[in-house]
């Protein structure tokens, strides 16, 4: 190793501020739409009502942590059905694989909350302080009354958005109208205020000040995504074989790039796409809009900066035409992801519709495995949990079927019925008795099936279990 005679390099540097210029075009319009829809979903969802009868909350989407229920419109998820959530997470993962392998970092560029809120914050910034040039001037000028006023106005609006963002989050976890009333009258639980406070702070800082640094330094996703892209993945790139050598319009021998820096000026990440694919690029496609605009003005074809695949680059360098976009999208890898994604999705929907309204779990009590009664009969005990997932109280009848002479009894009642209130679970101790000398009493183990019947709907369900007798194994 040798050390050149250069000054010791700085390992830390101040952030170079980014002042994205306003741009208009097809991708910018798409981004506006996605921003409107995603923010709309986020802010409005907790306020949608859904009638579930008198015993249950009427909030369409509710994560009821205290009562351990998750409500999503007509679906109610109990804790023992958490595999639905696991399934959704698997789908989310596969969906990201699919979109990333087909379209690169579209999640980062269009849908990631960091991108959406930063976009919103930049919109506010531009509205109050003006476009790029005005903001650069304002940045460099000394603090005076105008700068102070503009900065304070901007921060105030940012803060309002941040509070609304943090505020909307807590509404997902409890009845929204009640919580809003409690919040404004200062009667809400401290956890609600703390959560709003933390989310307000992160939204304000991440959207207003950290911005692209979150993607570059904090987020693991850019690193992971790179591993999921291949030469067929469509991503934002610069056609340097068409643009280079760059030069002012009319320069002899120059390519199509007139080095107007429009692509650099609109970039919210503060990078130059002409340097090629880079970790900091979130493929928001605003540079495409900016460049297309310039190309139209100078009468050159659009697409100097464009969505293209690496394999297209190779082809175009050889003078061939780019392949059809669908040929990039439909390939074994994306079809595999689509198949897996659909399979999990269909499995979840089928499971959702097939799930039983009656849910019974049977846990044999193994300490002791059996009890000898005074008349010599052998008794086994089972902890039976009955869940009533209906919206009204239900009455369940328990019975058993077995080849052996077994009798069923319930603790605390002479009947064989258990009342379970709506949306609740009841633990019932169930006894199964084999008379003295019966085969089940003398055997080591006897198979047995416990049945439950909903006396209202007459739905039946069963669980198989075993009966332990005195016999040795």
């Amino acid at each position, binding site marked *: *190793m*040798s*050390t*050149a005679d*250069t000054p*010791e*390099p*700085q*390992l*830390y*540097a*101040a*952030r*170079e501020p*980014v002042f994205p210029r306003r741009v208009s075009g097809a991708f910018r319009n798409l981004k506006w739409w996605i921003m409107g829809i995603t923010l709309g979903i986020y802010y409005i969802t907790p306020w949608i009502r859904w009638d579930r009868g008198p015993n249950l909350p009427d909030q369409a989407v509710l994560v009821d942590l205290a009562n351990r229920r998750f409500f999503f419109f007509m679906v109610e998820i109990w804790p023992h059905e958490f595999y639905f959530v696991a399934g959704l997470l698997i789908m989310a993962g596969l969906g990201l694989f699919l979109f990333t392998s087909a379209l690169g970092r579209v999640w980062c560029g269009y849908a990631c909350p960091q991108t959406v809120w930063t976009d919103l914050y930049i919109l506010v910034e531009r509205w109050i302080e003006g476009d790029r040039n005005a903001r650069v001037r304002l940045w460099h000028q000394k603090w005076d009354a105008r700068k102070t006023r503009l900065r304070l106005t901007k921060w105030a609006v940012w803060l309002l958005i941040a509070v609304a963002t943090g505020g909307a989050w807590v509404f997902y976890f409890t009845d929204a109208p009640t919580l809003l009333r409690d919040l404004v009258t200062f009667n809400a639980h401290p956890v609600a205020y703390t959560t709003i406070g933390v989310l307000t702070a992160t939204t304000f800082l991440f959207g207003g000040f950290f911005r*692209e*640094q979150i993607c*570059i*330094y904090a987020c693991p996703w850019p690193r992971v995504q790179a591993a999921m892209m291949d030469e067929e993945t469509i991503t934002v790139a610069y056609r340097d074989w068409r643009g280079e050598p760059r030069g002012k319009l009319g320069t002899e021998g120059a390519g199509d790039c007139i080095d107007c820096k429009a692509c650099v000026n609109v970039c919210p*990440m*503060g*990078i*130059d796409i002409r*340097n090629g694919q*880079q970790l*900091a690029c979130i493929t928001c496609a605003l540079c495409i809009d900016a460049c297309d605009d310039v190309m139209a003005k100078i009468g050159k074809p659009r697409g100097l900066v464009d969505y293209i695949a690496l394999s297209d680059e190779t082809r175009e360098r050889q003078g061939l035409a780019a392949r059809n976009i669908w040929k990039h999208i439909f390939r074994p890898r994306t079809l595999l992801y689509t198949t897996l994604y659909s399979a999990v999705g269909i499995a979840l929907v089928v499971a959702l519709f097939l799930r039983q309204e009656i849910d019974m779990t049977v846990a044999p*009590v*193994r*300490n*002791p495995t059996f*009890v*000898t*009664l*005074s*008349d*010599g009969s052998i*008794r086994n*005990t089972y902890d039976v949990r009955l869940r009533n997932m209906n919206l009204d109280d239900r009455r369940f009848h328990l019975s058993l079927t077995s080849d052996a002479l077994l009798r069923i009894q319930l*603790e*605390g009642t002479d009947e064989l019925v258990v009342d379970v209130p709506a949306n609740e679970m009841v633990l019932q*101790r169930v*006894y199964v008795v084999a008379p*003295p000398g019966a085969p089940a009493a003398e055997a080591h183990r006897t198979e047995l099936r416990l049945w439950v019947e909903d006396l209202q709907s007459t739905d039946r369900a069963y669980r198989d279990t075993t009966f332990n007798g005195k016999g040795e194994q």
Partner: protein
Amino acid sequence: MSSPNTPKDGQVETTGHVWDEDLEEFNNPLPRWWLWTFYLTIIWGVAYTIAYPAWPLISQATPGLLGYSTRAEVATEITRVETANASIEQRLVDAELTAIATDPELNQFALNAGAAVFRTNCSQCHGAGAAGVQASGYPNLLDDDWLWGGDIEAIHTTVSHGIRNDLDPDARFSEMPAFADVLSEEEIAQTADYVLSLSGQEHDAALAAAGETLFLDNCASCHGDAGEGMRDLGAPNLGDAIWLYGGSREAITSQIVAPRNGVMPPWTQRLTEAEIRAVATYVHGLGGGETLE
């Protein structure tokens, strides 16, 4: 972005380190606020050890300026739970013992609280599953055979005062005498075979026939003429399938010769009335609980 590996004046910024003639290291400086955050965590760490218990000393750690302690937190939490349970515990104490089972909320509370009391105080002898220790004199609480009664009030009395102890004047008491001094060896063998016959076990018919008179003279006053037992004295039923000290000929003989008399402590001194009622409800609900006539 601060300063990525982008060409500046056609020159990529490197750290200046060169290996193997042409391997260079790009310099991608971190943002300076990152460094400040690092310093802040150091300051935070130092402040934390001053504010909270941290540095181990000889007898205990430095207490910290905020006076925080996990033990105090546990004490607070226990107080909070006790306060929260105070009203339902009062209801449990005020209720008729027989009425507890008919109040679902009270019953549920008593069963859960009773299970905890049982695990802490009773399981050492009666076992975690309440099955007792067979043939060793720790009764099984799951079956339908009760020495001193199996209704909720009898269980409550037994738990409160215990059995054959010197600590509580109201303890249940009885004592089976040792018949080694009263009966001859032959007579004891005859009695044992008669007792075997009561529960329909294999026995010597001749010995048993001789033992009947001996049983009526010596045992029936407590165990009953037919060996059905007597709950006022805690005298076990000798005709059923359940044996406190074992039902074999050897075990029965041993019990006649030198009886064991089980002891249970009174719990009024260790447990609150609410806890005793809770554990009585729990034991009553284990499968052998009897309905009060």
